[in-house]
C-alpha cells in the first residue's frame, strides 16, 4: 500500500515537474514582460548587502517600467525579476542559477551578491551561453577565465586601494619628498578579495618605487591585529593600508585608536559597510575609504538624473536608509545596461543581446560603463573618500574631488 502511495506521489511529482518545464520553455519573455533572473543572498552572512542589491535591481526595474519599459521591435516590454535566495552560499548560487536557466527558462541573468557567489554562478551562465550582467563581484578571478557572457559594471578589486598609493605619492611630491622614499605598511586579510586589493596596491607601489615595510596577512577568523599595529607604531610608516572586509575595518578602527597608532595616512576598505563613523565617531576621522560610487559625484543619466537624484529617489522608495550603499547603485546600473542592450540588439536573441552588451559604451548616474574583452568595466574610476567631521568627502581622483585631503591625519585625543 505504502509502495503504491509513494509510486503515485512520484508520478504526480514527475508530472508536476514536466508541467513546470513545458510551461516555462518560453519564460524569458512572457507576453509583454521580459523576465530577468537572479540568485541573491537574502539570508545568511551577506543578507544585508544582498537586500541592498535587490533593492537596487527593483528600483531600476520600477523606473524603467514607469518610463515606458523596453522597446524591442517597435513593441514595448516591461521588465520583471525572478529572485531566489542563495543563502549566501556559492554552491547554492550555482544550483539556483542552473534552475533559473534550466527550469524557469530565464535567459538573462542579473548577478548575485559577492565575489564568491558570482564566481560560482559564472561557469553556469557560460555553459548555457546566457548573458549575465553582474554588479557585485569585483574579484580578479572573474575576469581572467575568458568568460564571454559575463559583464560587470563595477570597478575590479585591484583598483580599490591603488588610488591611495597615487594620492600618497602626490602628497609626497607636494611636500618635496620623493615618492620612492615612502614606506608602506600593508595589512590584508588572507582571502581572494583582499589579496586582489593587495595585488593592485603592490603594482602601484612598484610604479612609484615605494617599499613595503610591513606586509601582514590576517587569517579570515582573526579579530585581533594589535600585534601588527604594535609593529606599525615601532616602524612609523608613511602610509597604512588595510583591507579585511567589515571585520577588518571594525577591528582596525578600534585597535588603531586603542593603540594610538599615529600614521599620517590611513586607507582602508569597507569603512561604510562596517559603519566605522557610526560606531567610532571621531576616532574614524581622517580615514581614506575607497568607494565604487558616491551620491556627490557629478554623473547623470536620463533614467534617474544625477547621482544625487538617484540617492533621493532611493531613500523615498525604501525606508530605513540613511546613506544609499554603492551596492544598490551598481545593481541599478546593471539593469540599465541590460535595458540599453535589449534596445540596441532590437531582439531577444541571446547572442545578439550578448554582442550588444559587449559593445556597451554609456553614461549612467553610477558612472561611465564600457566593458573590456574580459567583461569588466574599464571606464569608471574608483573614488577615494576621506572621513572629515564625520562625513565622507570625495578627495581623489582630483577630477571628481569635492574636498581637499586632510594630511597628515590628526590623531583624535581621548
Amino acid at each position, binding site marked *: 500500500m505504502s509502495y503504491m502511495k509513494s509510486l503515485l506521489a512520484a508520478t504526480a511529482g514527475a508530472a508536476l515537474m514536466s508541467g513546470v518545464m513545458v510551461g516555462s520553455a518560453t519564460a524569458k519573455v512572457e507576453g509583454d514582460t521580459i523576465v530577468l533572473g537572479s540568485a541573491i543572498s537574502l*539570508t*545568511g*552572512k*551577506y*543578507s*544585508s548587502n544582498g537586500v541592498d542589491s535587490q533593492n537596487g535591481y527593483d528600483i531600476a526595474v520600477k523606473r524603467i517600467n514607469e518610463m515606458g519599459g523596453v522597446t524591442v521591435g517597435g513593441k514595448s516590454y516591461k521588465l520583471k525579476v525572478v529572485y531566489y535566495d542563495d543563502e549566501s552560499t556559492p554552491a547554492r548560487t550555482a544550483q539556483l542559477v542552473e534552475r533559473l536557466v534550466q527550469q524557469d527558462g530565464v535567459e538573462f541573468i542579473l548577478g548575485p551578491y559577492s565575489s564568491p557567489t558570482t564566481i560560482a554562478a559564472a561557469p553556469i551562465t557560460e555553459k548555457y551561453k546566457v548573458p549575465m550582467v553582474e554588479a557585485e563581484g569585483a574579484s580578479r578571478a572573474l575576469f581572467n577565465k575568458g568568460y564571454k557572457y559575463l559583464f560587470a559594471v563595477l570597478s575590479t578589486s585591484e583598483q580599490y586601494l591603488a588610488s591611495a598609493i597615487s594620492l600618497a605619492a602626490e602628497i609626497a611630491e607636494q611636500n618635496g619628498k620623493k615618492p620612492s622614499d615612502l614606506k608602506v605598511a600593508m*595589512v590584508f586579510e*588572507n582571502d581572494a578579495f583582499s589579496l586582489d586589493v593587495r595585488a593592485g596596491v603592490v603594482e602601484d607601489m612598484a610604479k612609484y618605487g615605494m617599499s613595503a615595510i610591513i*606586509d*601582514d*596577512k*590576517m*587569517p579570515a*577568523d*582573526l*579579530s*585581533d*591585529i*594589535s*600585534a*601588527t599595529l*604594535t*609593529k606599525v*607604531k*615601532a*616602524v612609523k610608516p608613511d602610509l597604512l593600508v588595510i583591507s579585511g572586509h*567589515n*571585520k577588518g*575595518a*571594525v*577591528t582596525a578602527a*578600534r585597535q588603531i*585608536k*586603542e*593603540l*594610538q597608532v*599615529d600614521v599620517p595616512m590611513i586607507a582602508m576598505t569597507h569603512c561604510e559597510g*562596517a*559603519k566605522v563613523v557610526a*560606531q567610532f565617531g571621531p576616532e574614524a576621522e581622517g580615514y581614506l575609504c575607497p568607494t565604487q560610487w558616491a551620491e556627490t559625484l557629478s554623473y547623470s543619466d536620463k533614467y534617474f538624473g544625477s547621482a544625487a537624484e538617484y540617492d533621493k529617489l532611493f531613500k523615498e522608495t525604501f525606508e530605513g536608509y540613511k546613506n544609499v550603499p554603492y551596492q544598490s547603485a551598481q545593481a541599478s546600473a546593471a539593469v540599465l545596461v541590460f535595458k540599453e542592450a535589449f534596445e540596441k540588439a532590437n531582439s531577444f536573441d541571446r547572442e545578439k543581446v550578448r554582442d550588444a552588451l559587449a559593445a556597451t559604451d554609456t553614461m549612467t548616474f553610477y558612472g561611465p560603463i564600457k566593458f573590456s574583452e574580459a567583461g569588466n568595466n574599464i571606464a569608471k574610476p574608483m573614488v577615494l573618500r576621506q572621513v572629515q567631521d564625520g562625513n565622507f568627502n570625495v578627495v581623489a581622483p582630483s577630477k571628481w574631488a569635492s574636498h581637499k585631503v586632510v594630511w597628515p591625519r590628526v590623531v583624535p585625543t*581621548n
Partner: protein
Amino acid sequence: MLDNINLLTLVPTLNIQLLLDGIFIGAIFALAAYGLALVWGVTNVKNLAQGEFVIMGGYFTWYLGTFGVHPIVAMPIVIAIMFVFGWVLYITIIKYVVTRDLFTSLLATFGIALVIQQALNLAFGPEVRTARSDFGTLSFFDGLVTIAEIKFIAFGLCVVLAAVVVTFMKKSRMGQAIRATAQNARAARIMGIDTDQVYAFTFALNSAICGAAGVLISMIWVIQPYYGIVHSIRAFVIVTAAGLGNLPAVIVTGLGLGAAEQYSGFVLGAEFQQATAVGLLVLVLIWRQIELARHRQVVQ
C-alpha cells in the same frame, strides 16, 4: 622575521605591550575555556556551541547598549539571561544526549551552534558589531605602550569572576555536588545527589560564564553571528592542553596562549598568529604522549 626580533631587542618596551595585550585577551579565553572544562569534566559533553554562547552574550550586550545600557552594567543581566538559556537548553536537548555516546553529543551541540548562528543573524543581522565602553586609553613610555582602559577592567572582571566560580565550587553545596558528580556520577547518586539537577546547573553555569566572556569580547574585539567558531577553537585548544578540572592550568594556558599569539603575530606576521596556537597544542600533545609512554614503562 629577523628584523622583527631585532626590533624587539632594540625597543624592549614593545615586549611590555605584547605581553600585556596577550595576557588581557588570554584572560577572556581562559574564562570561556573554564566553562568548557567544567561541562566536559562533569557531563562529558564536548560543547561545540561554546563560541556561539560567547557571541550570544556579546549580542545581548550590544542590544542592551542600543537602549543606553552600559556594557558593564549589562553584564549581570546578560549572565542571568544566559544562565536561564543554558538551563532551558539542557532540559530540552542536552539532557537527552548526556548519556549517549560521544558522536551524539558532538552532533547535537554542533546543531545547536548552527541554530544559534542563524537565529542571531535573523535577529540582529549579519553586520559586524562592537559594544562601546567609552573608556579611554592609558599610555606609558612616551606612548610606546598603550593599553585601553577597558582591557584592564575586563582583566579585573575576569579575575573576579574566576574567584567567584572557584569559591562557589569549593564552598557551596551545589559546587561540592558538581565536583562529586564529576568524580563519580554513580557514587554521587548513591549519596543522594540529584545528578540530573547537577548537570543542568553545570550547563547553565557554563552558559553564564560564556555570556560574561561575550560581554568582555564585545567591548574588546568584534562580534558577528558567525564568529563563534574562533572562540570554540581557542577554548578547545586551552582545555586540551591544560586538562580537565584543573583551573589554575586553564588560566595559565589561557594567558600563555594570548601572549604566544601576540608574539607570533609580531615576529612571524598576523598570518601565523592562530597557527601558533594550534602548533603549540600539537607540541603539548606530543610531550604528553612521551610522558605517558615513560610512565607506562615505569609501571611495567
